[in-house]
């Protein structure tokens, strides 16, 4: 097991790694793209700092209140939220975090202890650790103000809880990396992950519905769930704090001991994984065996059956080829494919969520809004693809520049795939809305279609530009590297805000005049303008792509 003290050589290596990370950051500022990325990251950092400090202040007040009024048990809820955030945020918000791949350090003469520490320390330099630590500090301050006597014992308990979170997050990352290293396990993991995420969405609505009805099983459910909650790390940490506050030193120390056992268990599991990596475990895709040697040169018969490529009506061969390729890529990416069912899931969540009155569903009488909401969500889900068109190409992007096809045809083919998916999704959403609620009224259907006709070309036009200006490689083999650049994420948020504001304004106009066709008409005018803008971008995309081909190729060909 790795200890905390490091030799002089290890300290030198730590310093060298810190220096190289600084140099990489500094060098990235030499390009405009790098500078934009840095500005985006600074904005994100300000957000995080605001959330961290504001949250810490709020939690300090809440903790002070709970411990001043002997209601420390409520802290368990807060610790659970912090715990879940700490563990899930790095996975969910990959667009706003930077992961450090330390596995390539193995070629250097690092001792196992140094390697372990590098993985643990540098891996922990992420927003979730910073925010989690700040929030726990806030709780500590609040408790101490309520009772100065608790300064040391609660500080100790919260410190162990923080360390446990850091180790657990690293452990989850390390094991997830292991499972994501092979394509098949990666796809299974992706689907499991999304199922978990989707399941989380249902917790609130279902709980609300059960509580709203005062279901007799709720009490029974509570009896089962509470002991489990108390046995898990956030519950144990809360118990330690409460016991210390009630001068139950033995109870507090016992809970602290259990927390330490958890932390050590996670540390051992992390150690197991990192040791395997340190010993040279190859996490990359296993290469296939070479073709059987035949000793025959040339003389082919074309005996193996090869299915012909797709022929699509009214579409040229190259565009059909790109269309087929994009469809195949999408069908082989479980997580990406899974995001496409999210609009239907959202409608289902709305359906099972109780209304404010506790009866019916969340949309209540406004069930006509199910279709617009589902359609908007469908478009939102596609943005990851639309704004990073070439992310999945990898080194293959070179082929797009040597092929005798204009870049605008390639981009058009990609947009055609996205538009087809969007159309299919909207059809599914319409059917789902009809089944779950009621068939959307014709005027709502027309207005929604008009809104999508406006929003889609706007997103595609901006997405096409950003796909070239700020590309980001999707690395299917490394955890947390299936994302667009931070600059792109910001820009897409800005575009969505503008589109929603404009679209929303037209809806308000039509709704307030009780003539929704006015909204439809306005949206169609906006759609026509958006389509003209889209075409203007498409007409210039050849030149733009050629001017930026070096950046595009270099970024997407990165190892």
């Amino acid at each position: 097991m790795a200890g905390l003290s490091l030799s002089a050589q290890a300290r030198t290596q730590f310093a060298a790694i810190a220096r190289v990370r600084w140099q990489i950051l500094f060098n990235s500022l030499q390009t405009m793209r790098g500078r934009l990325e840095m500005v985006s990251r600074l904005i994100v950092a300000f957000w995080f700092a605001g959330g961290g400090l504001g949250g810490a202040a709020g939690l300090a007040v809440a903790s002070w209140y709970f411990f001043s009024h002997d209601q420390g048990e409520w802290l368990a809820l807060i610790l659970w939220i912090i715990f879940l955030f700490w563990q899930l945020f790095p996975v969910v918000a990959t667009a706003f975090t930077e992961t450090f791949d330390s596995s390539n350090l193995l070629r250097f003469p690092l001792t196992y202890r140094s390697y372990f520490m590098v993985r643990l320390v540098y891996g922990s330099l992420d927003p979730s650790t910073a925010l989690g630590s700040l929030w726990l500090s806030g709780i500590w301050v609040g408790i101490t103000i309520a009772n100065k006597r608790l300064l040391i014992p609660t500080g100790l308990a919260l410190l162990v809880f923080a360390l446990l979170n850091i180790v657990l997050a690293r452990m989850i990352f390390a094991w997830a990396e292991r499972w994501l290293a092979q394509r098949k396990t990666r796809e299974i993991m992706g689907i499991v992950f999304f199922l978990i995420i989707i399941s989380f969405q249902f917790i609130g609505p279902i709980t609300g519905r059960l509580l709203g009805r005062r279901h007799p099983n709720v009490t029974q459910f509570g009896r089962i769930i509470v002991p489990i909650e108390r046995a898990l790390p956030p519950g144990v940490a809360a118990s330690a704090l409460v016991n210390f506050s009630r001068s139950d030193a033995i109870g507090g120390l016992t809970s602290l001991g259990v927390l330490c056992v958890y932390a050590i268990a996670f540390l051992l599991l992390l150690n197991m994984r990192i040791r395997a990596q340190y010993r040279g475990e190859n996490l990359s895709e296993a290469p296939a065996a070479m073709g059987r040697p035949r000793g025959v040169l040339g003389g082919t018969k074309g005996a193996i059956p090869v299915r012909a490529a797709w022929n699509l009506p009214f579409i040229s061969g190259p565009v059909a080829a790109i269309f087929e390729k994009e469809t195949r890529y999408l069908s082989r990416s479980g997580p990406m494919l899974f995001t496409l069912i999210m609009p239907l899931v959202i409608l289902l969540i709305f359906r099972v969520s109780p209304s404010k009155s506790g009866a019916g569903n969340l949309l209540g009488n406004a069930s006509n809004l199910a279709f617009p909401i589902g359609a908007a969500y469908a478009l939102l889900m596609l943005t990851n693809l639309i704004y990073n068109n070439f992310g999945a190409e990898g080194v293959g992007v070179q082929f797009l520049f040597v092929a005798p096809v204009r870049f605008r045809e390639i981009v058009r083919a990609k947009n055609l795939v996205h538009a087809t998916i969007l159309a299919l999704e909207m059809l599914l959403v319409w059917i789902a809305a009809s089944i779950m609620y009621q068939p959307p009224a014709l005027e709502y259907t027309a207005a929604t279609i008009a809104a999508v006709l406006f929003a889609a070309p706007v997103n595609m036009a901006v997405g096409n530009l950003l796909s070239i200006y700020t590309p980001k490689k999707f690395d299917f083999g490394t955890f947390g590297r299936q994302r667009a650049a931070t600059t792109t994420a910001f820009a897409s948020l800005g575009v969505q805000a503008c589109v929603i504001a404009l679209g929303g304004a037209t809806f308000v106009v039509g709704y307030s005049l009780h003539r929704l066709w006015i909204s439809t008409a306005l949206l169609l005018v906006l759609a026509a303008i958006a389509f003209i803008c889209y075409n203007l971008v498409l007409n210039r995309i050849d030149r733009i792509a050629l001017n930026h081909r070096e950046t595009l190729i270099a970024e997407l060909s990165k190892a």
Partner: protein
Amino acid sequence: MDAPAITTEGLTRTFGQLVAVKDVNLRVASGQFFGFLGPNGAGKSTTIKMLTGLLAPSAGRIEILGLDLLQSSVEVKRQIGVVPEGMALFGRLTGAEYLNFVGRMYGLDSQTAARRTAELLEFMQLDDQSKKLVTDYSHGMQKKLALAAAVIHGPRILFLDEPFEGVDAIASGTLKAMLQRMITRGATIFLTSHVLEIVERLCSHVAIIHRGELVAQGSLEELRAGVAAQAAAPPQNSGTVGLAVAPGEKLTLEEIFLRIVGGSRLAEQELSWLG
């Protein structure tokens, strides 16, 4: 008379202050098996990238089969095949799907693309792996697939950047035979490789680039004659050794290369602390 397959005039590429390729004037006749050599960082890959449209020149002109690359890029690309440095494969397609895709991108109809895909997979001994994703292929198999993709449309010029790197001896033999057959059928091949024995065996003409500048160009015999003439002249650099060429001595390409780019080192340049 046919237009030269490849002509460059004053081809230059700078990266900031660095001049990676400087005023290169290449002329490759149709039907030649042309080797493009140079030490690491000499500008080989930069040149081949410019010739294939992957990189814009800072100055100069490129003509492929008599067509200006900048003006008629699509027409030029239709007639060339490329195996670039990174192989340009799409990892999440199967081998068969990838070749089919490339064929369609080069304008083949779907039936022809499928037929040629089957033939190429068999020829490259990849037919038993045709349903495996490209990302699951070994490096050598990927190289063979990249080469298959580069020839699926029957290009008149083939640009190959290190085509034999990572390919086993059996496959290497297959590829060499295929390339020779293409030459006999009138195609032009422009190849870069660090394995000088391969270049010497395959190529009829060679150009050597050093520090971004073209320092030699011609047939192997012309290069040999040039080096012999240079060796006969009074030595310019007394520090280098081994420049003399004995009468009747037939220099290998490696020897020619080393003499041209100054591969000999002074004894005192050795790293005294090493071993």
